[in-house]
């Protein structure tokens, strides 16, 4: 496994800048998730690392060696595509064996067989080895795709939204398996997703991208508690952080320059005597209930334990602990009130 370093990466497609001066490091054995909305430049970044695209500026270093001008084959990385990208005319066995049959690095057949069986067993697809790649369910195709990446021991694994085409149940299972595999192998993984839940559960660190720029990088907990901007704050957490004018929550004592404040749904409490609000909508999610409340001029989300019962249309009072409030200036950047936040590298 290896360390990956990106330095000043820049890539434009015509008039659009997909990746803009991106620099970050993935430590050896780290699971780093690139999180961001569509068009943020996550997939482009991944492809730049793989060598499937050439950057307009900047460099890629794998294990300290500059690989920017090297072909994908020379970089020795594994890529799990969003569309699985299995070879349709080969069986599962041949799909898994394909990387090991590369000319010049060909393994002996007995070793190939052993390795393929091992990986297939690890991913629970051993019973489908003789099936054609097209005769599989979505989940099985996904596992073959991951298996094909695992079969070699490359420098690093690059995964492009590999779970996005799976149903929710399968996604849950695969998340746990991916994390387990990564721990067992000590693999360095760069993982792209737009799903904040995947990011929160899988990542050792999350790098949030927006419009091609890195806006924050840190552990899930760090970003969740200390977002550097409104954008970063809203990326993690479901329902997302509430962003409101300070007056709406009757917070009068604000640092200079504050234009908006952010407070998480779980940090709002129902009280007897407080800011009046009415319940516009309720979602019972099992372990929690999410309520959409309407204030005088704003709406916000509130997260309640199931023991607290409220009804749609009910009038309630809320209160917010000032300690939990985050202050943002006019440009959306967080105003430092003494808490630390890790920005950039």
């Amino acid at each position, binding site marked *: 496994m290896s360390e990956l370093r990106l330095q000043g990466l820049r890539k434009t497609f015509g008039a659009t800048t997909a990746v803009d001066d991106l620099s970050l490091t993935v430590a050896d054995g780290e699971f780093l998730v690139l999180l961001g909305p569509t068009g943020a430049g996550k997939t482009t970044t991944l492809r730049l690392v*793989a060598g*499937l695209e050439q950057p307009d500026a900047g460099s890629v270093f794998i294990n300290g060696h500059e690989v920017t001008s090297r*072909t*994908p*084959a020379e970089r020795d*990385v*594994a*890529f799990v*595509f969003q*569309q699985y*990208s*299995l*070879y*349709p*005319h*080969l069986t599962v066995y041949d799909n898994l064996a*394909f*990387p090991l*049959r*590369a*000319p*010049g*690095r060909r393994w002996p057949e007995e070793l190939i067989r052993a390795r393929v069986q091992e990986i297939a067993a690890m991913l629970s697809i051993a019973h489908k080895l003789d099936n054609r790649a097209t005769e599989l369910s979505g989940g099985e195709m996904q596992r073959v795709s991951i298996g*094909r990446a695992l079969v070699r021991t490359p420098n690093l694994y690059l995964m492009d939204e590999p779970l996005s085409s799976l149903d929710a149940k399968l996604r849950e299972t695969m998340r746990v398996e991916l994390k387990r595999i990564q721990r067992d192998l000590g693999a360095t993984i760069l993982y792209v997703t737009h799903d904040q839940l995947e990011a929160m559960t899988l990542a050792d660190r999350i790098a949030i991208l927006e419009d091609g720029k890195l806006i924050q990088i840190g552990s899930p907990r760090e970003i969740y508690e200390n977002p550097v901007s409104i954008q970063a704050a809203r990326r993690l957490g479901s329902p997302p952080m509430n962003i409101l004018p300070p007056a709406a929550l009757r917070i009068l004592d604000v640092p200079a320059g504050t234009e908006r404040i952010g407070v998480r749904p779980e940090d709002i409490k129902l009280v007897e005597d407080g800011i009046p609000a009415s319940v516009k909508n309720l979602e019972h999610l099992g372990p929690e209930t999410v309520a959409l409340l309407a204030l005088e001029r704003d709406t916000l989300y509130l997260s309640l334990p199931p023991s607290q019962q409220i009804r749609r249309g009910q009038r309630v009072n809320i209160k917010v602990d000032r300690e939990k409030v985050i202050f943002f200036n006019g440009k959306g950047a967080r105003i430092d009130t003494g808490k630390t936040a890790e920005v950039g590298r």
Partner: protein
Amino acid sequence: MTTKDKTTFIQKLALATPEPIARKARGLSDRALAWLFISPTIILLLAINIFPLLWTIYLSFTNYHANRPNMHVRWIGLRNYERILGREDVWEFMQITAHFVFWTMLLQVLIGFTLALLINRNFKGASFWVTVILIPMMLSPAVVGTFWTYLYQPQTGIFSYIINAFHNFGPIDMIGSVKLAPWAIIIVDTWMWTPYIVLLTLAGLRSIPDYLYEAAEIDRANSWQKFWHITFPRVLPFLMLAVLFRGIENFKMFDMVAELTSGGPGSVTEVVSIALKRAAFESWKTGYASALAIILFVTVFALGNIYVKALNRVKQ
């Protein structure tokens, strides 16, 4: 027209329809109406396709001569067929046709596939070159045959000139030579129809998603592996389809050969359809020619069926 006018118009129309027809039209079910609509086409089809086919089958069992309509027509059973299948020169022109089909298909697939692979990149002027390459296909076979006779002129034709530029063979008589004439028609057909193979192969190539090649690239496959495992399997069904269509056409090939060599010199390029034409409209052995036509039909049909079965197996 206002709604009121429309109603009145239709009412007038209804009134104008004679009562018996109107009654019948109202009583027609959907099914009957459907039949009514397609009946003109069916009648045309029957008259132009089905009837002649059946009539030809009937004629093949007779000794009818079209240039002697008043001659007494006798039913002679399978004698035409026996004569055809027993004659040596029948097998010869089957062989000539098979030779023609085999070589044209082989050359067209090899050249067409290669050309398609080369054009399938995004280079400047790609679409221009594709259009240029497609031009031969759009010409009429008779016209192509005709102007290639000029190209093939031993003294003044450009074909001989170009070959001699590489190595001095002296004036080359393609059409007049017994050995070279079959190749003359093969070359012209290849010139004309390779673009067809190129087109269908391009369609197949373009249906291959980029990410398959990218995955192979990441897996460190070389060009041959990419070709064999990704390109070839995906393109094969298209290629086979193209060969099926062209193969059938070339079995029946008439106009181009007729213009170019008329089956000559002698009968060296007498493909089946030319033999058929000679029998039918030069010797006027109509019954005999009908039998030959039926044999041709059955052969193409049978071969086509076998081929399609193979194609279906490849497609899956």
